[in-house]
């Protein structure tokens, strides 16, 4: 245990001396770069921004799930001459939002494949006139049959995408699963399902576009990935790359929900701006944002496992299926991550994972914190409790006996080379939560209790950065430069949306340059200024982009030293003065750093074998719940989150990430239910789509173990998505403990518990001794 140093929050922040290493800035709770502006209300979000002559855009959407557009009529009561109207015919380039594929139309031309699909765009100087005009457009359809569940989609009676409704399939086949069943003492099967989830960022989607033939197109928007929008807009407009400029404005939350959709809304604003010759703002209200934009992929996982009576896992056969909605968008990559994480944090001598993403006629599902992993990990972590129960072993002991350890290989054959110690994380989580005593006491006291209590665990991992060869393809670049005033700037397309990009990267830069944190700032997130450091997704910013900033900073320092302007040691003013002199003398001071894949990382996209991720974050979470037998409501009473995320760069932000992720995970498990009516979200209002409030969230006790990772910036690994993976299975395990009943589907609402416990709706027995 020598390698571990640890600290915990909440409570007193540790002094700098308690952190790992000797750094001055990395590892300290540096204040958010944009924090003052946000607190004082001077931060400008997209709806705060206006330009002279700017008009407003709105979207006319489909009212049906699938059909051919027969006729479009502009109804009475609207002075149509005053409106700019854009249809698919006005698109100068390709009618597609270019992501992995180009099947997602910017505007439906002749057919629609989901409710709320954009068909026409309207713009007018008076934004109040738009809702009425949108309502006055009458569209006649020839209605076509539509598909509204994974089961219907895989049955294939109605084909709504491609040849077979399948966006993507993966197969991981490691060892010989079929030979393992004969050696098993127990075979345990189960089916686990997860629902869609709405991101509910505070700041709704919005964009402003401006176009002149000379300057080209500029988009300002609330977004995560300026270069995704850039790629998409170039494809849509046919403009040269240097005539399309994307600028991220202050963004109030994203959670993956602003990965692909801002390309759509940016494209819409662009088309209206190009037709009208005026700047155009499109701002979604909450209802439009909820019904029209992406959600987390619903999933269904079937697991069959062979296990010995001593609790040794012999084999897993996993079928992981997701609902991708009407177009392929990011479904393939979400499926990929879910597939790779399906085996969980365990060693499987034999494992097969068959996965597929299916088309249905609802708006495309998209990226959401965790990106497929929360879905398949929910299934595995619920299943582990059921395996334990089937063989009569405690859930923690079954996990302990099967944890991945250094030297063992994951489902893709990746040998664990990090110094991971899940047993230690588990032991610590159990001790802090008082797990054993509570588990025993709750089991004893629950029998006649009106309020039944339960405690459950989840152990899991989350891969940092893009999957497999993804980072190699991204080929990211980050830079540092100095302004004429001698200010040092970080140049990245990695965006701030509340998670701490600005702060972390400035900490890394300041540390690497050997100057004060306050002397470093972020260059504007503007594709005309910054290099493409890749999208701000996949828990990659601290680890991958941070490392590039680190290298770029070292390069900049060396340039200054080589020029003779900087000596062997310096103060911050001396450094800034040297930088200023360099800029004055040579015109610029800049250093770029390009991603170089670690030499020992190999990945085969065909066989899905190899090093799926350069590093993993690891965690054990414990949830304690009460189930009220009068109302069947579940309350989470306590939550302990212990994780190892490499080096913690900023304890305040890291703790915030974990707390926020756990709260979002509690919502995912117990509150948030998207109610679908033929592909349309029926509860697209915050009064009916229920997220937990502060009154529903328990104390979230966050603990880090720090094990610096060699390839990350100052030892950092990814952290953003990890906390989304564990809460749902830990909570459902706790509810199942409290009620002595298996619950295998989320969201788990009071109504579902009532059906099972009071109205005795049964489920088939799935565990058999052989």
């Amino acid at each position, binding site marked *: 245990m020598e390698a571990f140093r640890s600290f915990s929050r909440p409570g007193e922040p540790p002094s700098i001396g308690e952190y790992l290493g000797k750094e001055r800035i990395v590892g300290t709770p540096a204040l958010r770069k944009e924090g003052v502006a946000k607190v004082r209300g001077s931060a400008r979000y997209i709806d705060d921004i206006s330009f002279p002559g700017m008009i407003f855009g709105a979207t006319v959407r489909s009212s049906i799930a699938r059909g051919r557009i027969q006729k479009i009529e502009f109804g009475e009561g609207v002075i149509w001459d005053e409106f700019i109207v854009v249809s698919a015919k006005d698109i100068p380039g390709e009618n597609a939002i270019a992501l992995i594929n180009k099947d997602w139309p910017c505007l439906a031309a002749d057919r629609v494949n989901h409710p709320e699909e954009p068909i026409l765009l309207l713009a007018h100087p008076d934004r109040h006139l738009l*809702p009425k005009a949108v309502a006055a457009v009458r569209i006649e359809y020839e209605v076509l049959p539509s598909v509204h569940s994974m089961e219907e989609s895989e049955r294939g009676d109605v084909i709504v995408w491609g040849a077979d409704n399948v966006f993507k399939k993966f197969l991981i086949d490691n060892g010989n699963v079929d030979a393992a069943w004969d050696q098993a003492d127990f075979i345990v099967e189960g089916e686990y399902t997860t629902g869609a989830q709405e991101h509910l960022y505070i700041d709704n989607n919005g964009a402003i576009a401006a176009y002149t033939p000379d300057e080209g197109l500029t988009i300002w928007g609330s977004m995560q990935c300026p270069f995704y929008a850039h790629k998409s807009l170039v494809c849509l407009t046919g403009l040269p790359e240097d005539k399309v400029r994307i600028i991220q404005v202050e963004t109030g939350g994203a959670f993956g929900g602003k990965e692909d959709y801002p390309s759509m809304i940016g494209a819409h604003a662009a088309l209206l701006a190009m037709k009208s010759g005026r700047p155009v703002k499109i701002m979604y209200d909450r209802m439009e944002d909820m019904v029209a934009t992406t959600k987390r992929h619903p999933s269904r996982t079937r697991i069959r496992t062979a296990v010995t009576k001593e609790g040794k896992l012999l084999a897993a056969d996993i079928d992981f299926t997701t609902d991708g909605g009407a177009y392929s968008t990011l479904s393939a990559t979400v499926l990929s991550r879910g597939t790779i994480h399906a085996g969980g944090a365990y060693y499987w001598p034999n494992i097969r994972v068959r996965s597929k993403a299916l088309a249905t006629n609802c708006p495309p599902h998209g990226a959401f914190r965790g990106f497929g992993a929360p879905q398949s990990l929910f299934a595995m972590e619920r299943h582990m409790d059921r395996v334990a129960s089937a063989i009569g072993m405690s859930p923690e002991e079954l996990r302990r006996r099967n944890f991945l350890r250094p030297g063992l290989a994951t489902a893709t054959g990746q040998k664990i080379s990090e110094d991971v110690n899940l047993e230690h994380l588990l032991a610590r989580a159990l001790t802090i939560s008082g797990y054993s005593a509570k588990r025993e006491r709750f089991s004893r006291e629950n029998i006649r209790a009106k309020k039944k209590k339960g405690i459950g665990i989840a152990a899991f991992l989350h891969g940092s950065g893009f999957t497999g060869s993804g980072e190699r393809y991204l080929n990211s670049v980050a830079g540092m430069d100095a302004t004429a005033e001698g200010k040092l700037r970080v140049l990245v397309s990695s965006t701030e949306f509340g998670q701490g990009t600005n702060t972390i990267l400035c900490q890394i830069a300041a540390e690497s340059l050997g100057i004060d944190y306050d002397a470093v700032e972020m260059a504007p997130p503007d594709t005309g200024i910054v290099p493409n450091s890749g999208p701000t997704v996949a828990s990659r910013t601290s680890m991958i982009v941070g490392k590039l900033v680190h290298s770029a900073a070292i390069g900049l320092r060396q340039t200054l030293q080589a020029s003779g302007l900087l000596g062997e040691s310096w103060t911050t003013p001396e450094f800034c003065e040297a930088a200023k002199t360099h800029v004055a003398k040579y015109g610029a001071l800049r250093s770029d750093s390009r991603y170089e894949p670690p030499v020992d990382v190999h990945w085969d996209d065909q066989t899905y074998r190899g090093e799926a991720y350069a590093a993993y974050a690891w965690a054990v979470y414990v949830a304690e719940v009460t189930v009220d037998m009068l109302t*069947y409501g579940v309350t989470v009473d306590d939550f302990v989150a212990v994780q190892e995320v490499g080096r913690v760069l900023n304890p305040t932000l890291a703790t915030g990430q974990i707390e926020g992720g756990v709260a979002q995970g509690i919502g995912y498990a117990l509150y948030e239910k998207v109610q679908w009516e033929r592909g349309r979200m029926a509860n697209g209002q915050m009064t009916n789509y229920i997220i937990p409030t502060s009154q529903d969230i328990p104390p979230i006790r966050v603990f880090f173990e720090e094990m610096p990772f060699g390839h990350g910036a100052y030892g950092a690994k990814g952290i953003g998505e990890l906390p989304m993976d564990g809460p749902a299975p830990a909570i459902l395990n706790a509810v199942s403990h409290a009620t002595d009943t298996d619950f295998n589907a989320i969201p788990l609402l009071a109504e579902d518990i009532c059906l099972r416990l009071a109205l005795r709706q049964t489920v088939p027995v799935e565990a058999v001794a052989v």
Partner: protein
Amino acid sequence: MRSHPAEYDFASPGSLAGVLERLDSEPGEWLPVAGGTEVMVQYGAGRLRARRLLNLWNIVDLRQITETSEHLSIGGGCTFAQLRGHVSVQEHFPLLAQAASWTGGIANQNRATIAGNIVNASPAADSPPALLVYEAELELISARGTRRIAYADFHLGYKKTALQPRELLLAIHLQKRFAGWFRYAQKTGARNAQAISKICVAAVGKLRDGRVEALHIGMGAVAPTPLRLRKTEEALLGTILTEDAIANGRRMLLTEIAPIDDIRSSAEYRRQVAANLLEDMLRNFAAKGNAA
């Protein structure tokens, strides 16, 4: 905002007489608005049918709580914040103070009024069950005079009330006669705060010699209107609260309520939980008797 402000009239007469005169001269034309917590949501969503709005927020006559030794009168314009903080409401009508604390968030409670809650006539509103069990009386006013009506007779059907187009809900009158009664209230929502009820219940009762001498039960979100459970009450009156009596109460309740499936819950859940809450209330009643 999905509505266009230019399509709406907003009048603010500034006095109760002025408001009543407007309602009298153009009955049905004007929608009285106090805190706006319901109306502005509909306006924002583009679903507000009324086009002419009449401001009540600045009518001080509606904002008073007055009392004698035997009565408490709550002006229709009193906010939930006022109600939950009022000493006499807390002392004599604690179920009402509690319901006020359940309604919306703090910002809503600062704007939303008791009369608005009543005339909006949502079957899921939090305050009606308490008003039903306290046997509140409503005073309605128009330019032609006032009339009084038992609150129990106010709701005629889903979103239908006895309020005439010329009328305004002036005040809610309560009798201070529940000191020492057993009381019970529960709200079941989708979360612990800022949730519209899936079911809410309020009850007051008295035991004499172990038998039910009086029992008033009100429930929300189990029928087209807030419901006083008279048949269940009658079945339990005079009984000793044995297991059989409680089971009988559950049975009667299920004949009396008519919950629906909607976006917030299911009919079968509501039936089950309504019966559970009734049972819980009766067990508490039997155990605590009059020691509220």
